[in-house]
């Protein structure tokens, strides 16, 4: 109320009146007339809004809507504003120029034939009633229908400012705990005597829940595990159990990494994923337990009993994605999380000798035991790759020569496991580096240059780069780049400097053509017995040359596509299907992105391409399948 201007209202200006007058054809409106009109119109508008408030209140809303205005006009015997239905709250656009500022309603021209030919919009869902218990004998059960007992903001506040908890009365948050009123009061009186900063006592029900969940998560029954993970990912009110859960995970990783129990490690990582996905939890307080566990699963020397057989690579990939997700969610300027994680991985890539001399002495001079194992190298590369192309550029690219020597050495060696690891590492390096190198180097790509610059991996890298270069841009001149979403290394991160690519695109105009990239990923280590199902990722996207996409992927939709094998330049209208394996978390995610048709490219045939996306990982009634990467591991469980 302090601001009197705010308190007692504003009014229309003379300028507004003149602009309105102009718009209806009165060129010169005198100042007096404008003043008179402005005052009157202001008064009438305010009266109408006041009346509309009544209708808003009786519609039991707190937000004024257009229908309220209509009803207010009606009781004033005025005609309603027909055709003014606006889903957005404020339909006004702002423009300024010539010293005048304008708010206007944007009216687009609508092509009727387009509307007629378009498929009818979806019928809205009918209203339905659903019952749940808000309270049972005065206690609110923590079911998803009820709000979490401690909101995410409160958890965040608590982790940032632990003092705030002390100032609050101690029995405020007892609503979430299934204690009856009497016990709660007893507890409150008790806590007067006992000084307890953080009580982590769990009720009997919570203890049971914890037991059930942890057993199911690491047990052998896949159905139960799916349910348990679902519960972890969705249920509110788990925050009281978080310390236990996180300790369980970190202890579990410690034990199982020693025992090389791959399956259990995977299950634990899936728990981490589920907890990360839970909207009502704020994990920052527990990162000190989670991050070591996750990074262990990325870079550990050995994760399974038979490195030559088991697909521990999938675990490393998965954990690397988790790490990226953690970094993205919790990185702040104070904890420098991403920097620290990056440093951790970069250290793994650090060759003791390499730091001194870039070209490096031959590997032979080093003892086998001193070397970082190839598997750890793989993990470090993957971990860095998930953090985005910038990180790849800074931390992996300078080490390519050395990594290549390691790979070369291993491939020429005798150890089967080493050979496999080297193959995987090489594959991964190419996948990660190719897009980055493409951005950095100008064509033409000469194998000799690459060889010179990157050593052993040079020629392969050159092939990969030229393959990428040719795939999206050459076939359709002026095409935007097809994108495999969410795998950061494959993102077209910035406007490509290469002139052949999108040279003609102007800075302001978004040129879109629709490309279809069908990329199939072959698993890094084909398991001998069961070849994992092939996965199709068909993605198209609208390139915005001016927009720099963020380096880290969007997190939950994660796509592996190591080699774009089939590249077709078909003009499809839309259809983007991304099946995310997301091994630990939610069910299959399908994303459909419509790409706006561009009129100036009507001559291109618009043959629709039927796309079949194989569900990679479906959860549901019919027995959930493990994700494909983990398929060959299920026998371990």
């Amino acid at each position, binding site marked *: 109320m302090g601001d009197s201007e705010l308190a007692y209202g504003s009014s229309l200006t003379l300028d507004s009146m003149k602009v309105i007058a102009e718009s209806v054809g009165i060129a010169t409106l005198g100042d007096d007339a404008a003043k008179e009109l402005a005052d009157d119109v202001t008064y009438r508008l305010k009266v109408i809004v006041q009346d509309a408030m009544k209708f808003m209140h009786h519609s039991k809303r707190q937000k004024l*809507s257009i229908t309220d205005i209509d009803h207010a006009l009606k009781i004033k015997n005025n005609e309603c504003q027909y055709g003014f239905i606006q889903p957005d709250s404020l339909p006004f656009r702002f423009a300024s120029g010539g010293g005048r500022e304008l708010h206007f309603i944007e009216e687009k021209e609508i092509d009727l034939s387009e509307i007629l030919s378009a498929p009818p919009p979806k019928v809205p869902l009918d209203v339905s009633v659903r019952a749940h218990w*808000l309270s049972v004998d005065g206690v609110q059960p923590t079911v998803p229908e009820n709000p979490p007992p401690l909101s995410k903001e409160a958890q965040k506040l608590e982790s940032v400012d632990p003092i705030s908890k002390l100032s609050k009365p101690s029995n405020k948050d007892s609503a979430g705990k299934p204690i009856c009123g009497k016990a709660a009061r007893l507890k409150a009186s008790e806590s007067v005597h006992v000084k307890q900063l953080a009580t982590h006592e769990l009720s009997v029900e919570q203890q049971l829940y914890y037991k059930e969940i942890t057993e199911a998560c690491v047990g052998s029954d896949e159905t139960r595990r799916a349910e348990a993970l679902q519960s972890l990912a969705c249920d509110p009110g788990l925050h009281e159990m978080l310390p236990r859960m996180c300790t369980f995970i970190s202890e579990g990783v410690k034990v199982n990494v020693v025992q090389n129990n791959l399956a259990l490690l995977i299950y634990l990582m899936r728990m981490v994923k589920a907890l990360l996905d839970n909207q009502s939890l704020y994990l920052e307080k527990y990162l000190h337990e989670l991050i070591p566990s996750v990074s262990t699963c990325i870079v550990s020397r050995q994760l399974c009993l038979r490195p030559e057989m088991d697909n521990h690579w999938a675990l490393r990939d998965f954990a690397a994605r988790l790490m990226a997700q953690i970094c993205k969610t919790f990185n702040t300027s104070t904890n420098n999380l991403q920097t620290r994680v990056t440093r951790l991985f970069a250290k793994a890539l650090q060759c003791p000798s390499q730091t001194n001399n870039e070209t490096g002495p031959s590997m032979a001079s080093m003892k086998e035991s001193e070397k970082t194992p190839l598997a750890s190298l793989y993990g470090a590369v993957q971990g860095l790759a998930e953090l985005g192309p910038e990180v790849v550029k800074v931390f992996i690219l300078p080490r390519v020569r050395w990594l290549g020597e390691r790979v070369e050495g291993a491939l020429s060696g005798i150890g089967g496991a080493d050979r496999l690891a080297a193959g995987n590492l090489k594959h991964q390096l190419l996948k990660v580096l190719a897009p980055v190198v493409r951005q950095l180097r100008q064509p033409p790509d000469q194998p000799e240059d690459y060889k010179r610059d990157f050593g052993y991996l040079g020629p392969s890298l050159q092939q990969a780069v030229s393959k990428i270069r040719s795939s999206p841009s050459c076939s359709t001149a002026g095409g935007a780049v097809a994108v495999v979403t969410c795998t950061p290394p494959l993102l077209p991160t910035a406007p490509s400097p290469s002139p052949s690519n999108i040279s003609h695109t102007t800075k302001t105009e978004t040129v879109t053509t629709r490309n279809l990239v069908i990329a199939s990923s072959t698993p890094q280590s084909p398991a001998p017995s069961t070849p994992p199902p092939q996965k199709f990722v068909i993605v198209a996207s609208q390139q915005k040359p001016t927009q720099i996409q963020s380096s880290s992927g969007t997190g939950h939709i994660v796509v592996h596509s190591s080699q774009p094998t089939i590249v077709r330049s078909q003009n499809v209208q839309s259809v983007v299907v991304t099946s995310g394996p997301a091994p630990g978390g939610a069910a299959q995610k399908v994303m459909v992105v419509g790409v706006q048709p561009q009129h100036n490219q009507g001559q291109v045939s618009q043959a629709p391409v039927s796309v079949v996306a194989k569900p990679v990982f479906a959860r549901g009634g019919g027995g959930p399948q493990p994700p494909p990467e983990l398929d060959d591991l299920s026998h371990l469980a």
Partner: protein
Amino acid sequence: MSEKSTPLLAVLQLLRKYNLKSTEDILRKEASLGDVECESLDLPEVELASILTAHHTESDPFTYELAYDGLKKFIENSLDLYKYELSTLLYPVFVHMYLLLILYDHVEHAVSFLEKFGIEQEDYYQEDLKKLSIVKHKDQIKGNELAEIYSTNKFTVQLSRDASSQLKRYLHEQKNSSVIINIINNHIQIEVHDGPGRTQAQVRATAGGVLGEPMKSENRTKVYYGLLKEPDIQVLPAPVEDEEEVEETPDKPKKKKAKKDNLFMKKPKSDPNAPPNDRIPLPDLKEIDKVEKGKALREASKRVQLGPDSLPSICFYTLLNSGHTAISCDICDDSTLLAVGFNNSNIKVWTLTPIKLRGMKSAEKLQDIDREAGDVLVRMMEEKDRDTCRNLFGHSGPVYKVAFDPFKTMLLSCSEDTTVRLWSLQCWTCLVVYRGHVWPVWDVRWSPHGHYFASSGHDRTARLWATDHHLPLRIFIGHYSDVDCIQFHPNSNYIATGSSDRTVRLWDCLTGSQVRIMTGHKSTIFTLAFSVCGRWIASGGSGGDMMVWDLSTGGPAASLPPAHTAPIHALAFSRDGTVLSSGSLDCTIKLWDFTAITDESPIEETLNNLIPKEDKYLLQSFATKSSPVKGLHFTRRNLLLAVGTYESSA
């Protein structure tokens, strides 16, 4: 004569000075002034001017500010004993000064006056001031709702005798107080009461009405707030005990004395506060109604006793996919049906039990049914036509209220289209359209005994109807603004209304007159609920404030702490009258200890101890997941049902 004619003579002299002959003649004729007086026109120039300006003070903009400032200082400096009572005078004086300034075309002065002193007014008047501030021209005063209320009615201020004499002395002493005196004479009703001046809390408890506090005389009529004698129902297997409980429990929250009376005398007929059973002619119970009553009593015997240590369970019905469209709801007395009124004129009725909703057979088929058969009511329903949800179409505007009749055969609804509709829940069609309200109808309620219903609307009236008359039986006029909510007294003899003028009024259905006017709410009242015993009424407002009133005195029994942050749209008493529940748009349901509220306010000192121990009233608060609460209902077994719409964050 000479005194009176001085200004006239001054004017005459002025006219003569400017040589306006004909006007002078007319004036002389009209004032019947003799030539003698006219000849002696020799007033000095200075005095002439002073006489003319003195006459002009009313339209001098600067006097207003000075006079108001003076009054304010006087009140601030007066004794604490009178200070708070006198301060109630400031707001009406302020408002009328503003309106006068507007009236005399001093718009700029009016605006600056408002800006200077507006923020000093009580917080609950700020909203009105905002509404008033849009009036910036004298033509706008006429036609503006609020300005008209102020200019055509008198604002009532209650002062103790001493305070009023203090005020009088001040006004006499002051020179430029003529403006204030005029305003007080024309627009303010000062009611002088004997006794000491009131404290700040006491003043605040009843302040807030658009036109101040009620006159003492307005609340003198006796109100029969007791319950009617329940008719004996033979259908029950063991009715005696059940009935006893029903009759006793409502009296629990009352004073102990009253309770004792009832314990000793089994027949509550002797309740001195109950109206005679035939005061209002009530319909006879039909056979089927008796069955229903019997069922209710049996259910009631299984009721859970509630209290601070045994809170009710709450079952929350969420309306999914409704967004902002579902705006009203009601659950029928036996908690089997849920009706929801929508923004898009539609009404939906759901069954909350596995029993499906059945339609009636067509007229031809009904002919074939043996009307004497015992199960004729079952037979006349269609076999195949069953559904869990049924639509009722007919309104042409948002449905602001739906209400089941006590025997769940009919449904009432009111809408923006100014009509009230009566629907049959057997053939699922509209039976009657009641036209009478001129503007949107905000609320409609059944009498607890059926047959009668009451409606209220934007036309500032409340109306009493009987289902068999297409015209209202009574029209209750008196509110200064929209009548936003209405509620029948449990004994069907009275109707309570809550309004945007921030008053709750109680009307006698028999005489149609207003018997209570209760002020103290600081915002628009959106919902009302009578206690089970009939003596108290709870009201909830748009500011999230709640109050409990005592009908016997018309005074506030308790002002509950403002726990809600958004308008309260639902209030419900538990069936044993011990717990009051409130539901608000801030997505919470709160439970209040009603026994404590009424116990701590014995009649003699209702006003004295309002502030302390307020925290004790609130028992528990339950938050919903972004679902504003739009309806509350206690089942006969004291399970609380709540209805809300899920509104996603988008």
